[in-house]
């Protein structure tokens, strides 16, 4: 078997050294009735590369790949072009098969890239510090709420209706166990974000206000007023960014004085991958750094005075504080963080700004084209690369029908909010640098057909 290097002779020699006459002797502690008399049944036996490839390719073919057809889905995961060099770098064995950098002398490769990653995220978000990544945006969002509770010692979090419904669902699930109180509602089909409503909800019991930017319907809201009100009540403002490319074109939440900024880094370096693995981004103000969950990489020197990097502030983490840890998180999303930082390095500020404007302007052009269709109106006054169309029919069946015709038309609000009848005519459409004019025409024609 190609991954098992021991030969029968090797095994004999080793058993002799051990002083056992068979492998079974080494499993002596396993009680009799749990010992099996052969390989586990109902599973196939081993297979060579060709057979495995054939099997996997068959499964792969039975999916509609985004790049093969007009594609407009977003809602928390975006299709961007991952440059060839980025995908190449993450496949270098020294990165791919490395472990968590607990022995820093032989892990400076990983550690330096994490330090660069942290710096890039902090600057993109406009905050003082960022960690070495979390599992994804939704768990980062929840961890931020928990962090706000620790800092303010209050248990009520106000969630904007523009927060991704999966993120809300995750927070609600966790809050059931931690007894945090969450205030949240489904969004309404209005051009403005729910900033005005949220202002009314902030009081002295509030630990934090959680705002998505741009929000689930693609709307871009100024959070300055919210930040001010939150601070006046000694509450924190948590901004959630599910599309970091947007920050190449719009103000950072840190610039508006957000206290904690979290997000999903998938857009950069990490493909769609059917939902995972992704990479959670987490940043905050300097004064809260010891309350931040997750791994942190810091700069130091070695015994010869050379600059080097190490994991630091570990005493917050589970393997030391155990019950009193800031979180139970163990891994970060290492390789995805590397992909993010490598892509960001390749872009640089110049490339990121260009990429952002390309996304935005293509989205504007697409919105204008789609809105010219009878029965289609555009909800948003402002948007980055994602906007909400309101059709004069339920969008969910349309999306399914178009998918059968090999057009992936976007995410219907009926899919995200099945309980909210008022949202059933909404369709979230994302446009990126990978969307062509032909794709937009194809979608337009298809929608015209459906709405005629």
């Amino acid at each position: 078997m190609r991954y098992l290097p021991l030969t029968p002779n090797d095994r004999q020699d080793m058993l002799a050294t051990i002083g056992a006459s068979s492998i079974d002797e080494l499993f002596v502690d396993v009680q009799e009735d749990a010992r099996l008399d052969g390989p586990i049944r109902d599973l196939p036996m081993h297979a060579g590369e060709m057979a495995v490839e054939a099997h996997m390719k068959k499964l792969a073919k039975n999916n509609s790949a985004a790049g093969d057809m007009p594609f407009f889905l977003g809602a928390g995961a975006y299709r961007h072009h991952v440059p060839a060099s980025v995908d190449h770098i993450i496949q270098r064995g020294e990165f791919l098969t490395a472990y968590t950098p607990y022995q820093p002398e032989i892990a400076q490769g990983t550690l330096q890239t994490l330090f660069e990653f942290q710096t890039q995220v902090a600057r993109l978000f406009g905050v003082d510090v960022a960690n070495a990544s979390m599992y994804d945006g939704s768990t980062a969002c929840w961890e931020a709420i928990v962090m706000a509770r620790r800092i303010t010692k209050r248990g009520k979090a106000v969630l904007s209706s523009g927060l991704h419904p999966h993120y809300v669902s995750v927070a609600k699930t966790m809050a059931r166990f931690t007894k945090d109180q969450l205030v949240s509602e489904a969004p309404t089909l209005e051009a403005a974000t729910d900033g005005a409503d949220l202002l009314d909800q902030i009081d002295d019991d509030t630990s934090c206000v959680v705002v998505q930017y741009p929000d689930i319907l693609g709307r871009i809201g100024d959070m300055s007023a919210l930040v001010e009100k939150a601070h006046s009540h000694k509450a924190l403002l948590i901004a959630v960014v599910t599309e970091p490319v947007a920050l190449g074109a719009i103000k950072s939440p840190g610039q508006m004085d957000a206290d904690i900024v979290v997000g999903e880094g998938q857009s950069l370096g990490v493909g769609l991958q059917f939902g995972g693995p992704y990479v959670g981004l987490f940043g905050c103000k300097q004064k809260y750094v010891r309350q931040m969950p997750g791994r942190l990489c810091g700069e130091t020197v070695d015994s010869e005075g050379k600059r080097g990097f190490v994991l630091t502030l570990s005493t917050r983490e589970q393997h030391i504080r155990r019950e009193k840890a800031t979180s139970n998180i163990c891994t970060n999303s290492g390789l995805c963080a590397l992909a993010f930082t490598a892509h960001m390095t390749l872009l640089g500020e110049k490339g990121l700004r260009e990429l952002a404007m390309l996304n935005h302007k293509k989205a504007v052009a697409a919105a204008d084209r789609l809105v010219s269709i009878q029965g289609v109106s555009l909800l948003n006054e402002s948007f980055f690369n994602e906007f909400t169309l309101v059709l004069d029919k339920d969008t969910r069946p349309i999306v399914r029908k178009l998918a059968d015709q090999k057009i992936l038309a976007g995410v219907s609000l009926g899919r995200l909010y099945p309980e909210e009848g008022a949202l059933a005519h909404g369709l979230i459409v994302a446009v990126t640098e990978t969307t062509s004019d032909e794709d937009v025409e194809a979608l337009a024609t298809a929608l015209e057909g459906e709405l005629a």
Partner: protein
Amino acid sequence: MNMLTEGRPTKQDENLAVPDQSALKTHTGNRALMVDEPLIFETGSPDRSGVDLPEAPFVESRLGGLDRDEPISIPGLSEAEMVRHYTRLSRQNYAIDVGLFPLGSCTMKHNPRLNEKMARLKGFSDIHPLQPVDSVQGALGLIDELATWLKTLTGMPAVAMSPKAGAHGELCGILAIRSALEARGDAREVILVPESAHGTNPATAAFAGYKVEDIPANADGRVDLDALKARLGPDVAGVMITNPNTCGLFEPDMKAISDAVHNAGGLVYCDGANFNAIVGRVRPGDLGIDAMHINLHKTFSTPHGGGGPGSGPVVFSDALAPFAPLPFVEKTEAGHFNLVEEETAEDHHGDSFGRMVAFHGQMGMFTRALTYMLSHGADGLKQVSEDAVLNANYVLRSLEDVLDAPFSKSGPCMHEALFSDNRFTNGLTTLDLAKGLIDEGYHPMTMYFPLVVHGAMLVEPTETESKAAIDQFIGAMRSVAERANAGDEMLKSAPHFAPRRRLDETLAARKPILVWQEPEEYAEAAE
């Protein structure tokens, strides 16, 4: 003769005096292939980029007046510079591809490249999680197939695929337990955890709102069954047991532990980090557990990637299956795959404790793990655990004369061998041995874990090491251990040959520098 004397010398002049290498300096500070690489903030610039993008359409922006008006200050590099930057950095990393990686409880086995190739098939990598399910039947089918493998290998009836890592899986298991007990109207407050457990166990239990109490170990390093039985009662929700345990030993009383906990009305969580010792050979379901997380990045070869991403699916017993989180894949009788989310959960999975993460889970790790399982098959996986256990016992018996092995007398170990620093002299510690091992060309073994052994060293060679590789490793360990036993001072300043010497972690914690700061003069000049 026609004597031709052109050409350069072909070997070094024997009479040349060569000074001691350590005194030599180079202009760049580099040492041949070992190149020091600056930060991108020191070499890149915000106006340089390594991508070419098409022109944007000529339309007006509609950013709601929130256009970015401040610099981002992230430098860029051209493609060649970027590739060189990361290639140079990668060469300062140890990795499985570089050598044996003996980290106990991490299972650093070879990461097959077929996994990478399959994960990149566009039918898996280029699909969006919210596409209509009819357009992703292959992907849902893959998740279902992997789920079937996991259930069959563990002998458990149900599995939750969505947790993003081992610790996340632990949380999933404990929340399911909590939900099950609350549904029974019997919410309990205490979870029992062995002293030797990994820190994530008590952290997870505390996060879920439980009070954590220790279960003592007996002299053989196993759970003290009598002490456990004495503590069980109506306030104990359950136990979190690692089996094989963190000392590398199988718990022979596992079934008895499960029975005792069940009799007292509690539930059993099993930490599956050490599944590599028994995969394909023993089914945890036969030992009475109720939930177990599986680390796909340990047992099933998905890459560690320098710290992640992981994947931590959790298998469940019948008692806990109804409470499993959303979403999950289900197969209809017609062979069609559906995704059960919040929407349809009400109908037939109403007791689910809810959603733990956006979207469905670590698809990229599922493709890799399934590729691995198909490659090995049931027979191969059985051989995996046998070779893993064989290799670890070989290491144990080959080193127990030179390194103190606290449980070596009580029988064989499983897939990892545990040593302590008890024989070291001159104030030398496990840390010193580890740093000495670095100089020998190896990543150290797991250190100072489990906490129950002084200066613990946990060695897990895994099954993907040849006998020759293990013999070489044993030779290196023996050498460094002998030096530690003899009190060799030089170990205190090891490593001597790594890209960096020992780093000042005190400074890093006292004065944390977590992001790049512009040097003062540069910032002032910019004003």
